[in-house]
């Protein structure tokens, strides 16, 4: 993975120089900012993993991992996942020319809450159904729709598509409800493996983003407890505080290593293995990020509870991403089912 660190480092460098001071203002305004999306497009961040023949850089998808880690660490908002991963994974989906992203309309974001999220049914090229929450659907210029074992491309202006923006509680994302009433898809790709790849890469990159959220929280907390004084000394000199910070660092580091190891194996993994790698990383990332962010708020005291501190933003972002493409428990069940169903390889 060391080869891919350069992209993460470049993104870190840019965000450190020109995003940090805008961060709060941008986050306060919600998940969508066309100027910011254009800025990132101009920097070439969306086309990293897009194949060269489509005008991208053609680096392996795994190279996006360290980049998403930085997106999390710097609390970047906007459709980074949609912009970066969808054109890289879906043949025929050209990279965005402007700010508007593609959106992923997928009822498979969850198992346990599937009934609450909705369903899409397909007869030939025609789609029906509803998905109650889709990231950036109202901003999208194309819809990538997962219907059973097929991936369909739909122009949002097609007759029968209705998109209704929703109030959202994820500080980095806009949501909308998407309904299809006998909609004709422009393209239908019958490819079960592509469905697995879409969901797996969503999980892997969200895991990296969560890992970055955890890392950002640890960094803020180390700075804070070393500086904040009570009882005449820095609170970071108290063992109760020190040990909590050590645990935050240890968990966050182990999560980063898990994500990097999963990315290293993912590019060449067959679908079943890819699914295992991705579910493992996402489940653990959701657990660790939420826990680390909670400890960060605790150690920031009253300030941690306010929107003036970064840690409250890290936390709300982590909570929103925790259940997207599988919360820890449903992924644990899914992993266990796959492993128990496997033919035994050892005596």
């Amino acid at each position, binding site marked *: 993975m060391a080869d891919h660190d350069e992209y993460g480092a470049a993104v870190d460098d840019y965000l450190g120089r020109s995003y940090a001071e805008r961060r709060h203002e941008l986050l306060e305004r919600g998940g969508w900012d066309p100027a910011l999306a254009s800025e990132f497009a101009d920097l070439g961040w969306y086309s990293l993993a897009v194949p060269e023949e489509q005008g991208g850089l053609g680096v392996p998808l795994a190279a996006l991992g360290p980049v998403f880690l930085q997106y999390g660490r710097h609390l970047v908002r906007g459709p980074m996942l949609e912009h970066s991963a969808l054109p890289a994974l879906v043949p025929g989906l050209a990279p965005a020319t402007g700010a508007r992203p593609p959106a992923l309309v997928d009822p498979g974001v969850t198992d346990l809450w599937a009934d609450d999220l909705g369903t899409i049914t397909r007869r030939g090229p025609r789609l029906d159904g509803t998905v109650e929450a889709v990231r950036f659907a109202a901003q999208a210029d194309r819809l990538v729709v997962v219907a059973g074992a097929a991936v369909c491309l739909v122009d949002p202006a097609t007759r029968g598509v209705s998109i209704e923006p929703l109030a959202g509680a994820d500080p980095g994302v806009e949501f909308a409800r998407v309904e299809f009433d006998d909609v004709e898809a422009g393209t239908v790709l019958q490819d079960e493996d592509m469905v697995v790849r879409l969901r797996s890469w969503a999980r892997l990159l969200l895991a990296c983003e969560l890992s970055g959220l955890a890392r950002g929280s640890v960094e803020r907390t*180390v700075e804070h*407890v*070393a500086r904040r004084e009570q009882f005449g*000394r*820095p609170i*970071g*000199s*108290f*063992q109760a505080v*020190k*040990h909590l*910070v*050590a*645990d935050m*660092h*240890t968990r966050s*580091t*182990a*999560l980063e*290593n*898990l994500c*990097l*190891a*999963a990315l290293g194996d993912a590019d060449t993994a067959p679908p079943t293995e890819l699914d295992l790698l991705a579910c*493992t990383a996402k*489940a*653990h990332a959701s657990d660790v990020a939420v826990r680390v962010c909670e400890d960060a708020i605790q150690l920031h005291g009253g300030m941690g509870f306010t929107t003036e501190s970064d840690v409250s933003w890290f936390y709300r972002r982590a909570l929103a991403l925790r259940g997207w493409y599988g919360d820890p*428990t449903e*992924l*644990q*069940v*899914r*992993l*266990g*089912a796959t*492993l*128990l169903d*496997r033919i*035994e390889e*050892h005596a």
Partner: protein
Amino acid sequence: MSTVPTEELDAFRARAREWLAAVGPPEVPLDLDARFAVLRRWQRTLFDAGWLGLSWSKEAGGQALTHAHQLVFVEELVRARAPQPIGLIGLEVVGPSIDRYGTDEQRRDLLPRMLSGADIWCQGFSEPEAGSDLASLRTRAVLHGDHYVVTGQKIWTSWAHEAQWCALLVRTDPSVRKQAGISYLLVDMSSPGITTRPIRQMTGDREFCEVFLDDVRVPRSNLLGRENEGWAITSHTLGSERSGATLRRRVELEVALEDALGQLRSGGIDDDRVRAAVGRSHIAMRVLDAQTRRTTDRLAADTGPTPVDSVDKLVLNEAEQTVLAEIAGLLGPLRAVPGARPLGLRSDRWAHEHLYSRAASIYGGSAQVQRTIVAERLLGLPRG
């Protein structure tokens, strides 16, 4: 350490696997005395076939290969469900110290017998009042002519009642900073004045001992390294032992989880709670695996002990305790019945392994000590 070509290691692994399959690992009896005898014979078998001391020098009786070979063999041993040789403390901790800091005579006299299992070694480090704060140890050694006279008490000394030799940390200078007055002695356990008393663990095993030393005479030539420089030797070897042990434990846990999965499959259960427990165990193992990839890199680079070892140790503790608690949690009420097979799981084995996992965050530097190291030395938080 230079990097070994992958093909060479693969060929070595294949040879090890073939040999292990041909020789057939021994059954390990539950009874401790019987177990000791079987494992000692097993060490001899391994030694005769040239599988021990892989990374040790030829003059020490080793094979002059690399640490990487050693790791591969340990992994194959575990995968073959074969036991470790009985003299692990000698092989992993004391031996490398003697090979590195010992005199030619010490290496020649002690190491080949340690490898073959002719001599079993124990490690007299901890004391009743010196656990996490090991450097405050009080066992005194006073030089009288060409002998040290040693008096004190050690505890948690595995296999002391069976050992021929002990690597003993003693205080030779009480007047200086505590780390600066410690020496490392190689003590013949048949010396007059040594008494051992086994302690029964909650797993039922009696592997640990208390060791009482009462005016024990140790020849001056049995000092390892220089007088009052024992702490440096200890730190160096505890560090490398820790990394090696982490890698071995990872494979052991992986094999344990495979075994548990096999048993659960045979039990034919169909339940989300079981699936979730398996899922959590799998995640814990993948976390440990990702972490130990870093450990392997550091071992290969021979960086010596670093505060990052403490992160490894904490990750290992958590993985080990998670996996074994998840599996043992599936025994339900039949945990208390060793002969039962709830959901297909062997109750006796998983209850035993689960109990043993609780020691992981205590031995080799407690989790609290590791957290303090991480906070102060890695994150730069002020000392309290």
